């Protein structure tokens, strides 16, 4: 009887084998890029299938090939599980022989992927993750962190808001490592700029009701309410803040906001909110042109991460073209010695620790009367030079930095 079970399992194993993608010919005459991101869950709107499309656009703009070598894109959904992502990445490196790995959203996943890429000595580009550790304590010679990180957000928003007069702060923090990091980084900046912290309240992750915490914030009589949270928590706290009229006595400072969040909340609720962003579709003609192409395919305007996907892939492909090689070390060397000048960043550059330094922007959400249509949500208040918002080399905890 058990023999039958055995043969059944062998059959299934065979089926599993057969359904492996037919990339058994390992040829290095192809430039293969692997892209893992959250395709269907909490972060799917800010990156997800839109991000894949952006990467495809970058490949298409390169002509689909470099010096006769075809460019291929593999993608997968990590479902916010680090081991699904890790298994996929290892499979791609070992079996499909990818040359470059892209990490979409989710810091935990990106940290895991960075480790694997370092092991395999291949380039890893982290686009949508926020963890500054990627170029800090867990940096690697093969990691490039592209769009933003928690330090830049904290410094940008913190110092700019204090300079604009918002001196006393109260934090509503999501009670987990990311929230704490965001709160701590911002608090340091605020204090250094001469502001004061009136207090903070730590709300459990994925709380649905923030009314109680907001009431505590209001009774602190601080001028600014700093939202050290992300995603659904940010959306729910903004909505509740609006309901309780917090906006009448305090100004909201979001520490991690994406255009998709504003889109789903609506301008009525978010107007006047200030935050730091790395890119906006309506900044100049170049960004507008690219965003129109993106919107034609994806039916909505791109977020900073999706623009970052395009920019990072283009930069990598340029590196391959210039060096004529897809070897990890060669490409990394080129990337760290050349500037990034495209619709995403002007005079950006990749530092020794892998951090891509570029200007960030302080944005404010428009009033409904100021907006001409959907996605027309931001006005740019200030440019925050890259060198001043990202972790400086002197502060860096990366082992690659020689001090």
């Amino acid at each position, binding site marked *: 009887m058990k023999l039958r079970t055995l043969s059944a399992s062998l059959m299934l194993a065979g089926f599993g084998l057969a359904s492996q993608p037919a990339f058994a010919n390992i040829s290095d005459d192809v430039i293969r890029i692997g892209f893992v991101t959250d395709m*269907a*869950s*909490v972060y*799917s*709107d800010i990156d997800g299938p839109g991000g894949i499309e952006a990467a495809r656009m970058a490949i298409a703009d390169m002509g689909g090939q470099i010096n006769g070598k075809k460019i291929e894109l593999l993608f997968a959904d990590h479902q916010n599980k680090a081991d699904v992502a890790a298994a996929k990445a290892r499979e791609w490196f070992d079996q499909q022989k990818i040359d470059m790995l892209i990490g979409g959203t989710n810091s935990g996943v990106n940290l895991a992927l960075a480790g694997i890429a370092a092991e395999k000595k291949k380039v890893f580009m982290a686009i949508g993750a926020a963890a500054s550790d990627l170029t800090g304590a867990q940096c690697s010679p093969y990691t490039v962190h592209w769009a933003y990180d928690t330090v830049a957000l904290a410094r940008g928003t913190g110092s700019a808001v204090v300079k604009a007069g918002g001196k006393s702060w109260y934090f509503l923090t999501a*009670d987990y490592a990311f929230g704490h990091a965001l709160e701590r980084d911002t608090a340091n900046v605020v204090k250094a700029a001469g502001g004061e912290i009136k207090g903070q*309240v*730590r*709300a*459990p*992750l*994925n*709380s*649905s*009701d923030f*009314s*109680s*915490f907001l*009431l*505590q914030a209001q*009774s602190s009589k601080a001028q600014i309410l700093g939202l050290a949270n992300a995603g*659904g928590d940010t*959306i*729910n706290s903004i*909505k*509740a803040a609006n*309901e*309780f*009229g917090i906006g009448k006595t305090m100004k909201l400072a979001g520490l991690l906001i994406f255009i*998709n*969040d504003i*889109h*789903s*909340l*609506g301008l*009525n*609720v978010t107007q006047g909110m200030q935050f730091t962003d790395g890119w906006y579709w309506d900044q100049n003609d170049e960004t507008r042109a690219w965003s129109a192409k993106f919107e034609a395919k994806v039916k909505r305007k791109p977020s900073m991460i999706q623009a970052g996907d395009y920019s990072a892939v283009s930069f990598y492909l340029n590196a391959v073209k210039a060096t004529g090689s897809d070897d990890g070390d060669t490409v990394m060397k080129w990337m760290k010695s050349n500037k990034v000048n495209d619709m995403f960043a002007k005079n950006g550059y990749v530092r020794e620790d892998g951090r891509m330094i570029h200007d960030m922007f302080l944005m404010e959400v428009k009033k409904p009367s100021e907006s001409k249509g959907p996605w027309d949500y931001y006005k740019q208040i200030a440019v925050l030079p890259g060198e001043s918002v990202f972790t400086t080399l002197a502060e860096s905890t990366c082992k690659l930095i020689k001090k």
Partner: protein
Amino acid sequence: MITIFGIPLQAFLGQLLLGLVNGSFYAILSLGLAVIFGLLNVINFAHGALYMFGAFLAWMGMSYFGLNYWVMLALAPVIVGLFGILIEKFLLKHLYKLDHLYGLLLTFGITLLMEGLFRSFYGVSGQPYSTPEALRGATNLGFMVLPNYRAWVVVVSLVVCFATWFVIERTRLGALLRAGTENPRLVEAFGVNVPLMITLTYAFGVALAGFAGVLAAPILQISPLMGSNLIVVVFAVVVIGGMGSILGAIVTGLGLGLIEGLTKVFWPEASSTVVFIIMAIVLLLRPAGLFGKEK
């Protein structure tokens, strides 16, 4: 200024009131679960997903058909109830003669299906829904400013809970329901259509969930994940109250809302786990739950 445990009385009362608002949601949801469990002996894991469905229906009604909040408040529970009838008739019915665990697993599968489908169509950022005109604004109660809508939530939840309790405990229909739980054969022998009663009970239970969803729509972002965040807490509430006890579900729901509200003030980080801690304590001291009877 009077202070209680170091915080001003005003703030304290304010937090209690907010806790009561949350407690109302817990009460309605655990009421639905208790009703379903009492008669069908099924743990309806899909309660969270159906609550989410109710909220989405409110939004769909507004966006696609221009139906306002008041219409959807009445219509959405009906639609959810009808959907519940479908689930019961075509899926749950087959499982009654089996171990109760299968009902739990089936509804778990339904939850995954519904959440996945909604997520696939609507993404996760959520849909906005504005408070109806009549309930906008806030009232200054002296010790705090309470949005009118939240006051409405408390009032309507208490009314609905009381009405349900009254029907089940004090009317003939309720008596039939309770008898059906104890001894379905006998009740059937009296000419009562027990299967129909069961179907309608399930429909009513999930309609309550849908109703809670519409109530929640203006407060929370309507997202496919809103149910799963809530359902585990509601389960704990039902375990603490004692499953199958209607009064127990209502009182425990409100009480835990209050306790959670207080925890948010004194120890905010623990506010999401306090319910489970209480559950563990209650289980040690009174395994059947505060109001439950040992089955």
